[in-house]
């Protein structure tokens, strides 16, 4: 949805919650409303996050890919560079398990970083995202993505009525 972001600052969670409720009743979909805060708030305290968290699936998939890579590395080593030692198997299972496990864990850890960051939308430096550094002073910023014009005016009014200060309309993304 293209539009503008209405943003207002609140001192306490309850006022912010009232603002969140007022924005929903405009009506605005849950996905268009968010908070920006220095401390995480429980889901549903002010707004809800309707998007499911999907990256753990990527992590699990990465674990299996890593396991395959580890298995491949160990097996390829045995077969391409066979080390013949009397009485010892060329393809040895316990070391293969260790190498497989470690590389699987490495892939899962890296996938948590990369997939997690991507799903959070981090690293998009060129995107113009709304922000207010006063959240570090304990303020809660309630933001809503709205259509410019009447909807923006009504959203700003809802935030002001709920006790919001510094209510403003900005071009940008949530």
């Amino acid at each position, binding site marked *: 949805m293209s539009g503008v972001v209405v943003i207002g600052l609140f001192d306490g969670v309850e006022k912010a919650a009232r603002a969140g409720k007022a924005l929903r009743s405009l009506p605005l979909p849950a996905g268009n409303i968010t908070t920006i805060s220095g401390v*995480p708030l*429980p889901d549903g305290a002010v707004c809800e996050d309707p998007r499911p968290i999907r990256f753990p699936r990527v992590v699990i998939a990465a674990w299996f890919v890593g396991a395959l890579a580890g298995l491949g590395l160990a097996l390829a080593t045995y077969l391409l560079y066979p080390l013949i030692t009397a009485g010892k198997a060329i393809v040895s299972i316990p070391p293969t398990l260790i190498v497989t496990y470690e590389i699987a*864990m490495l892939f899962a850890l890296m996938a*948590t970083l990369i997939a997690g960051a991507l799903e959070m939308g981090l690293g998009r*430096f060129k995107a113009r995202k709304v922000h207010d550094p006063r959240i570090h002073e304990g303020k*809660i910023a309630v933001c809503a993505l709205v259509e410019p014009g009447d909807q923006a005016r009504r959203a700003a009014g809802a935030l002001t009525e709920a006790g919001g200060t510094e209510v403003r309309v900005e071009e940008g993304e949530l």
Partner: protein
Amino acid sequence: MSGEHLLARTDEAQLFRDLSRSNQVTTWRWFAGMGILALVLLWGIGVFVYMMTTGMGVTGLNRPVFWGVLIVNFVFWIGLSHSGTLISAILRLTHATWRAPILRAAEAMTAFSLLVGALFPLIHLGRNWRFYYTIPYPNERGLWPNMRSPLMWDAVAINTYLLGSLTFLYVGMIPDLALLRDNSTGWRRKLYSILSLGFRGTHAEWRRYHVASTFFAILIIPVAVSVHSIVSWDFAMAKVPGWHSTIFAPYFVVGAIFSGIAGVILVMAVLRRVFRLEKALTPLHFDNLGKLLCTMSLLWGYFYFTEFLTVWYNRNPEEWEVFRSYGKSFLPVFLLMITCNFIVPFPLLCLRRVRRSVPAIFGVSLLVIVGMYSERVLIVVASLARRNDPFIWHNYFPTWVELSITAASFAMFTMLYMVFSKIFPIMAISEIKERLFHTTERAIGNATAEAIARVEEHGEGEVK
């Protein structure tokens, strides 16, 4: 409880100033300390170059002791790294309410001790300039690392743990880097802007951030355990008396956690003093870590006794000779180990007033570090010095070369920590703020107790 829940329970600006003091104030002492450490490190590098150009003969290594202090240092630093991330991960997963001020110091300790420890196999290598032979890539030499060797498992495990720990440390810092970005100017602002990746603290970001943190904690615990198990298998897979033992993996893990907790306490005590963090790092934190240290001392004693008992009863001559040497040539090291790891720490740590006294617990932790270093000397050196054939038995003493490199490793670790504390937040500020937000004072009769709200999500939008 008041009708309005405020995110700011304290003067946020003052809290930020207190917790990020290390980033804001740089005194002449910091530069003086860095200068001295840099000299020690440069000396160590010079000695290493001398050893590399002259040959390993300048060390005290000789038949049959081919693994000496350099390998002891490797095991010591990897062991020290063990607890930081592990403690942090366990405290995160169990939602320990006192964890916040400890996390960053512990995680950073892991990362830096791993960085230092991982250098020692390369330093010990002999022909160090051919270190790249250990990397698996197609080459004209027709050489490839032997995946059946425990040393190769070690390389794989340590790389996984190092990357995982650095990532764990970094991810834990993202909200604080965003906080610093919004409170800084100039090059620092640019640096924090890049490193915080544009984190703002939206509701969706926080939710995913918490899931990612939990995943990291879940994944890093088994990696941490596997790393020190594999370090132990470097020894246990060899048919060397004193090494070839099934108990070695859990014994090494326990020893690593033991020395790691002592390391965390030492680092915390120093940070508390240097950066005046008395309000954040309270006696409660030292008390809780002291309890863990006490438990690990007991566990270490149990493992050591179990290992000794089976050899003592069995009296297998090869293995018994190693233990007999503890009462002869290695008696000072053995006494140092037992005294510093068990006889002194265990009874002292049972006392609440010792655990709650920062100087006292600092002293006990220092003893544990000395004791665990001695233990590694006994494991590595004594076992090789009494290896099978009595005709080749020979004691080992490190020369100035090994001692210089060891001193340089301590200097490097301290320097890394000092540089880190200047650039990055040494306290997990966001975690501390979150804890303050969830904490209220509750009157129970005439007493006032601290009540901490814990948020659990049960389903779609359902919060308990």
